């Protein structure tokens, strides 16, 4: 599971109001090289929850992203791609292979096996 996906997943247990973002318990993290595509990153930038991404990246051992969200104009400008490359790496190249996603409100753990999160709820949670 890459962080682009994690940035969208939330805990949907009945009654939970604060199910996002899910905390990450990382047991196995791998890096998969992905072709750098600045246009795609720019296209998606507005939708990314920056602070949550920064924290998630730290859970996977990557601390290069700046704390504060860069201005949209910085991302748009063609000049400096170093920030975009860090974003690219955090968002798309870090993969949680084994571990769990933890609901911030209930502590419920959703397992991640072979890179696939299992978000199925139990009967009493739906």
């Amino acid at each position, binding site marked *: 599971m890459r962080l682009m996906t994690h940035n969208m*997943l*939330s805990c*949907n247990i009945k009654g939970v109001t604060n*199910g996002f973002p899910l905390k990450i318990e990382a047991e196995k993290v791998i890096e998969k090289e992905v072709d750098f595509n600045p*246009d795609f990153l720019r296209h998606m930038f507005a939708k990314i929850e920056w602070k949550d991404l920064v924290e998630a990246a730290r859970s996977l051992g990557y601390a290069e992203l700046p704390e504060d969200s860069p201005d949209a104009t910085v991302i748009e400008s063609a000049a400096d791609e170093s920030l975009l490359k860090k974003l690219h790496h955090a968002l798309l190249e870090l993969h949680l292979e084994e571990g769990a996603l933890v609901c911030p409100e209930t502590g419920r753990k959703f397992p991640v096996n072979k890179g*696939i999160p299992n*978000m199925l709820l139990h009967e009493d*949670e739906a």
Partner: protein
Amino acid sequence: MKATLAPPSSLISLPRHKVSSLRSPSLLLQSQRPSSALMTTTASRGSVAVTAAATSSAEALREGIAEFYNETSGLWEEIWGDHMHHGFYDPDSSVQLSDSGHREAQIRMIEESLRFAGVTEEEKKIKRVVDVGCGIGGSSRYIASKFGAECIGITLSPVQAKRANDLAAAQSLSHKVSFQVADALDQPFEDGIFDLVWSMESGEHMPDKAKFVKELVRVTAPGGRIIIVTWCHRNLSQGEESLQPWEQNLLDRICKTFYLPAWCSTSDYVELLQSLSLQDIKCADWSENVAPFWPAVIRTALTWKGLVSLLRSGMKSIKGALTMPLMIEGYKKGVIKFGIITCQKPL
């Protein structure tokens, strides 16, 4: 906001019927389920309470669906490729298509669905897409490539999710698409995050159509579109409370092998969307456009390769194959309809 029904040229006129059969718990319980589940009819018609047994049979259905696709996906992909849905054909086309012709028809189904929903004119606005009941990700990868959008797919089958991710990696689409195991009735997403919500032939698996539609609507962004393409039963006529017993019997036999809960009609979906104040609701009956599909699937099953693969794949696949003529019968007799329902969430 008042929901408006905008009739395109292909819209069939929907007979009005008072009973919305899918809201009654008895519809939840009257379907065929895998034999291991318990059936109960203790919930009275019109009551809102769902019994504990009904809840566990929903669990059993979920497991049955997962196991079915765990077992049969590989076989389907081997023979038909990565799109697990009907092809779209010109009606009355008598030309017998080659394998690649059917593959193209499956792509055409995606394109026709997008076009029907009015999505093709809005490419730049589509950034995030969810594929509900994504199979091995054929639609997701296609749509992500087409719009340069991010697409997330959900399926009950871990085998499908893994295969879908592997195919994405092989096609260098890992940065755009990802797949996870999740329940369409309890989607692990915040409200309103998807510009396009896509359900291609998965609605028929949902035991609670009202909950299913509510979830689809919940995760749609304001201004976003929902596309549901699904197997339905025919619309009920005025005064009809349910299908004829022989019709129900035919569907029940199909339900058992394909792990389907009770069927509903296209107009049931329209009513649900209307009740949730969606706008620009459109629907159509594409049964004529999918007529060549099941005969083609049966033909591929009867080839040497098909038979050998079926035998290797297991009982669920074999039973599924034996059920396919019932699908043809259902379409021919007007019981089964191939429906598309699309709408837009108000801003």
